[in-house]
């Protein structure tokens, strides 16, 4: 871990097993106020049968990244650069017509709020059948059989009778299951779950997470799981990517990142999480300040205005030079590995209990 030399990111290793590999992804939106760099040089890999968790505050670029993977940004107002290689095919260079064949078929997405993400105007059955018929050329009857099968699989009782119901006739948890069933209709090899359980209560959340795990075991899909709930991540993911201001600041296996986090931002995230066994009088420690404006990001390390440890770094490195993220297990911070370890053990770990 000697990362004080370059400002440009070196690509993460491209293993032959990487099913989805994102390299130096940049997503820019042109707004009236200027250009927003929503994602700025992001690289990651996801393997088949594995789950990559992505955490970060609102506006850190989690959802934007994943919408870019499916090519769902409006080309008129946004610009997507870099490589998104799904099973050997570069999606940034794929035509819209070809993308339509991939979406919902090879790569599917589960959205956060099923109430707004499902169309109120059509029956659940129709919304489920549509992509299946389009991608497989199945008949109406076959599509219905498949939809009922998937609805049953995600735990909707009497799926056959609910086929012709509208989304508003389902409860919140059931609607989210419908959303999941819809994403799984064509056995996607890549499943992107964008905060699939954020809007649900914890018991339903647990059921849905179990469901996703079961389905992953059954189909061997790669999953990208976006959330800001570290508890969910600990339960779901194999690898973890921590995002801040459109960039990855820490990467590693879930165990590594949660047990021995290296980046001050990750420390902040962990410290601001309430503990079940914690003392009731113990104050939570939120990260001071607010997420940076992506229109005009801070110089150097985007986290430095909120970072409590900039004085430990010599000179004005933090505000002057952007730390790069190394390969594999890595964190983008100017602190030396020894400093990271000492600070974590002395200051952070005691708080986490």
């Amino acid at each position, binding site marked *: 871990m000697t990362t004080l030399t370059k400002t440009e990111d070196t690509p993460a290793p491209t293993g032959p097993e990487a099913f989805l590999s994102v390299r130096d992804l940049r997503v820019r939106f042109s707004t009236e106020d200027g250009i927003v760099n929503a994602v700025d040089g992001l690289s990651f890999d996801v393997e088949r049968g594995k789950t990559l968790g992505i955490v970060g505050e609102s506006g850190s670029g989690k959802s934007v990244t994943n919408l870019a993977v*499916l090519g*769902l940004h409006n080309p*008129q107002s946004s610009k997507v650069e870099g490589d998104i290689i799904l099973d050997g095919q570069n999606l940034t260079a794929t035509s*819209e017509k070809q993308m*339509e*064949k*991939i*979406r*919902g*078929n090879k790569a*599917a*997405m589960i*959205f956060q*709020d099923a109430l*707004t*993400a*499902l*169309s*109120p*105007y*059509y029956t659940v059955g129709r*919304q489920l059948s*549509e*992509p299946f018929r*389009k*991608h497989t050329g199945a008949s109406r009857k076959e599509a219905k059989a498949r939809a009922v099968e998937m609805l049953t699989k995600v735990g909707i009782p009497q799926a056959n009778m609910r086929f012709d119901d*509208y989304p*508003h006739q389902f409860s919140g948890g059931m609607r989210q299951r419908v959303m999941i069933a*819809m994403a799984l209709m064509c056995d996607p090899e890549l499943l992107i779950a964008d905060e699939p359980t954020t809007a649900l209560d914890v018991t339903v959340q647990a059921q849905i997470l179990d469901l996703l795990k079961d389905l992953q075991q059954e189909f061997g899909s790669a999953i990208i799981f976006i959330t800001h709930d570290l508890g969910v991540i600990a339960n779901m993911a194999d690898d973890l990517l921590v995002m801040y201001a459109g960039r990855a600041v820490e990467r590693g296996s879930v165990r590594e990142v949660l047990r021995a986090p290296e980046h001050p931002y990750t420390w902040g995230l962990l410290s601001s999480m309430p503990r079940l066994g914690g003392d009731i009088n113990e104050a939570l420690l939120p990260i001071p300040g607010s997420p940076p404006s992506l229109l005009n990001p801070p110089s150097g390390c985007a986290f430095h205005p909120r970072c409590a440890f900039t004085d430990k770094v010599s000179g004005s490195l933090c505000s002057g030079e952007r730390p790069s993220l190394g390969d594999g297990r890595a964190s983008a911070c100017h602190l030396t590995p020894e400093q990271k370890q000492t600070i974590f053990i002395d200051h952070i770990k005691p708080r986490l209990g």
Partner: protein
Amino acid sequence: MLQFLVRRLIGAVVIMFLIGAFTFFLFYTVPQDFAQLSCGKNCSPENIAVIRENLGLDKPITTQFWEFMRGIVAGRDFAVGHCSAPCLGQSFDTGDFVWDSIMDRFPLTLSLTVGSLVIFLVIGLGSGMLAAWKRGTVVDKAVSGASMVLSSFQIYFLGPIVLGIFVYSTGWMDNPKYVPFLESPIDWAVALLIPWAVMATIFTAQYTRMSRSTMIEQLQEEHVRTARAKGMPQRYVFFRYAWRGSLAPIVTILGMDLSGLLAGGVVTEFTFDLAGIGRLAVDSSMSKDLPVTMGVMLFGAFFILLLNIVVDLAYAYIDPRVRLA
């Protein structure tokens, strides 16, 4: 659904009754002797007495109200003969039954409405959707700009210009007039083409703007994004998912515009010198022919109520969430 319809219909009948009662009693607060009005100048007291009896004005006001209401449902007898239901009374001026006068004028008003409706719906919704589809391009800017300019026009401004060009200067077309549809559908359409075009121009501009903005709003909905994320083709997403949602606000405005048009477009009729319901309403109130004024008012109210129910039904058809409520 049926229950909903029945409830709405009963409500509409009650409202019609209230409007009828209100106009009727408003009518009698006017400080005028109706028999005198009907008789005209140089009228002998005997004549007035006869007229008063013929019109039933000598009876108590409650009896008159009962007869008026009964007449609407069951018809009533006047000195000049039987006025069959729905009887809205008899004109002071001409002695014609009000319902007959309205029915004389209604075909023109209906023709103006239907003709312009077809044009402005097809072109208005179509161009609005095109602009939304091509949002931000030259096409969008051209369509938006044109509709902005046209929607600020008025019929009495555009109408005379079009008449001036196509009728008075070049003589390519005749002055608009009403030819009964059943007599000759082609002549009917040709004779009304100018008013249709002028009315439709102004309405088209409004519907273009509305359809563009509701489509753009819908295209940003999350469920539209979900449909794309499922791999549905862009065209399909546009026409099935986004368009469906954009209809509800349009149907609401359309219902209001239509009931206004059917109750009579005064400005249009005067601009093109056509005799429709609007003309009848203005003429009757100028000559204080109160039964006709009342009749036209009730007739207009009927369309407003009817179209309200139709809009509610259309809403339920468009949005299943409304159906169970």
